[in-house]
């Protein structure tokens, strides 16, 4: 393993991992309130397509970014209506949102396939730019989302563990009866978690189309949403641990690209399987014990007192 390869891997991991991290953070917030959103893939796609479309129309990637966040929040609110208000089965509802995301993103993005956009601007701190080993890589030359990725993770962590709201959200996710008994409005807390989580998901999707690839293609998230769901488990529902997880899986994807670029004999298809298999292995190896770390009321519908 040479240094350029390692650096390239690291750089790639950070780039790839950004959207994974945002998606994981969003889903962590939601799951901490006791809701599983299998439709995260759909949220990412909607964020990507809306972001791309608005950017193409307005010529401004910031509008695109904001629109993507709003779209993600909207998606999750819709999901929230199903599972919190109508008390529908969370798994089936999540899949409904997945389908919706597939279709809506395709419709929204269709007119803009092939459009050229100026994506999110990237910055590199001047004092780092002059270093030789940095110059040849993409390291430290990031857009706003990547720069803010770790701070946002810390912020989400802080919100969950140091604020009254976060305490309430976690209580709902662990034992809604106890939260209810303590006088909290469980439905409102869940809706709020879904809203913010959705916005983060929208941003995750936007990063793909507005920064990583500067394109839009149907199904372009390629299962990142499901990997993020697995990452939530892997990081034991802790936003700080999610950073490590996102880096790891981002690294797996980056490895795939690096090996391809260097003409590795390993088929790109086999490499492409890595993230999913890795996810499965991780769930298997740690899923059993991790389950203890899960919010105790995850996936369950709360019907009110008693």
């Amino acid at each position, binding site marked *: 393993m040479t240094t350029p390869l390692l650096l390239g891997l690291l750089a790639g991991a950070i780039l790839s991992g950004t959207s994974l991290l945002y998606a994981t953070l969003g889903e962590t917030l939601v799951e901490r309130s006791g809701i599983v959103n299998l439709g995260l893939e759909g949220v990412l796609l909607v964020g990507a397509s809306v972001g791309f479309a608005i950017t193409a129309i307005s010529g401004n990637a910031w509008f695109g970014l904001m629109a993507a966040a709003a779209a993600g929040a909207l998606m999750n609110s819709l999901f929230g209506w199903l599972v919190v208000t109508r008390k529908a089965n969370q798994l089936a509802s999540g899949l409904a949102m997945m389908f919706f995301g597939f279709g809506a993103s395709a419709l929204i993005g269709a007119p803009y396939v092939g459009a050229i956009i100026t994506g999110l601007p990237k910055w590199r701190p001047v004092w780092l730019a002059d270093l030789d080993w940095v110059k040849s890589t993409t390291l430290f030359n990031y857009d706003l989302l990547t720069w803010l990725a770790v701070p946002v993770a810390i912020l989400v962590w802080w919100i969950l563990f140091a604020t*009254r709201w976060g305490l309430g959200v976690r209580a709902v996710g*662990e034992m809604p009866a106890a939260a209810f008994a303590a006088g909290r409005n469980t439905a409102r807390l869940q809706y709020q978690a879904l809203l913010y989580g959705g916005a983060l998901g929208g941003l995750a999707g936007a990063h793909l189309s507005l920064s990583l690839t500067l394109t839009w293609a149907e199904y372009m998230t390629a299962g990142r949403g499901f990997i993020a769901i697995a990452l939530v488990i892997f990081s034991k529902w802790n936003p700080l641990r999610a950073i490590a997880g996102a880096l790891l899986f981002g690294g797996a994807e980056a490895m795939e690209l690096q090996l391809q670029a260097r003409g590795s004999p390993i088929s790109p298809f086999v490499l492409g399987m890595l993230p999913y298999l890795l996810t499965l292995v991780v769930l298997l190896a740690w899923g059993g014990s991790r389950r203890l770390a899960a919010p105790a009321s995850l996936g369950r519908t709360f019907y009110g007192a008693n």
Partner: protein
Amino acid sequence: MAATGELLNVEARVPATPMLEARGMCKRYGDVKAADGVDLRLNRGEIHALVGENGAGKSTLSKILYGFVHPDSGEILVSGKPVVLHSPQDARALGIGMVFQNFTLIPPLSVLENIALFLTDLPPVVRHEAVEKRIHEFAERFGLGVDARAQVRQLSVGDQQKVEILKLLLAHARVLIFDEPTKVLAPHEVAALFRVFEALKGEGYSILFITHKIREVLACADRISVMRHGKMVGSFVAGEADMEKLVATMFGEHAAVRSIEQPSPAPSSPTSRPVLELRGASCRASGNETALNGLDIRITEGEIVGVAGVSGSGQKELGDLILGLRPLAGGSKWLCGEDASAWSIARVRESGVAFIPEDPLTMAAFPGMSVRENLALGTGKRYWHGVTIAWQALEAAMADSFRALAFPMPPLDMPMGALSGGNLQRVVVAREMAHGPKLVLALYPTRGLDVLSAASLRELLLRARGQGNAVLLITDDLDELAELSDRLLVLFAGAIVGEFKRGAWQAEEVGLLMTGSRGAANV
């Protein structure tokens, strides 16, 4: 401060307005009167115990006082003023707090977080140090020392209970209601709890606690109220009552065995073969379950063994252990002379073990499926006929079973979930008894049955015995146990603490063993 065992000074003058009072409380659940014109007065700076048998209505009364349950009629007065409690929030606003048997603590959260969650005056950004400080203040004052940063699930049950108390104190409660607080505590934790009670009482708090452990009640309560069958049947000031008096008030007159159809004692001769043997059987428990410790039980052919015990002594775990649902953590289990310690449930059932569970709806029935299908599913391989089921043979056998039991057979196409509780129980019983099982495990079998059906079920158990089969009857009805048991075992906290032959025991004695008030007898 009064030490345990010392009689407390009773204030002979008329007490000031009680902190909390219930007048004429009535609450009905279907046919059952859980509360029937109950009066209760709880004074300031008083430790008041509420005792009674299972099902006496203690829990219901306390839940009414906490706003958890709405009474059908009656008044609640707080400091002399009538109030209406719509919910626990109302009760808490009035300074009433309750500590349940199942704590509403969130295990993965810390003590601090659990308490903070409860505070209505918590700022948006939680000041952990400030909350911690307040916790320490109360902890110091009342002997509720606990590590505020620890996760609740790491705490012992006794410490968890302290957290529940702190929760209420920090939320400005002045009346504290406890539902069976010592049930899950070790002896030294019980002593610590009573010290806390004394400390609270000293500062004018009022404590109402529900229990069936009479020894403790005598040790620490200022006043004792006794309930039975939903009525308040006695109220004593400390010093007026002793153990025997309380037990007599709690259990009433049970000594007389019903003389109708007194069966002749089954000759359980030494040559009778054992149907079930547990040798030093133990099993683990998690959460609210009760671990079983080294049980030695032997049931022979043609014998009914009854197991008495207050709920939560390990009855469910014992039934599950015999069935094979719960693995043995130690010791062995033998069925008809074969080592069945590792048998699958199917095998256990095939060898002739019938199980009438505590809650047939959730444990032995499939509500969405028809009665016919429910019957088929309980018979294992017996009616397997090629690819399908021999429905006619099954139906005929089941019809016979229903007839033998004098139970009406519901329409077989009816969905099981549409049956009333009693009817569903009957179907399960008919199914289990249909093939002359060698061992009948019955947990609270006559619960929910009307008088006639209950009587015929008891007859059925006697008949099973007469045919040379064995019956293990676990129930809380001492009358029933008196009528049916050839031998009576008393189960307490996962161990057998007493064994008696038919006719050789009295209700009071058994009552004491059941409540852990006396050490093991005849074991």
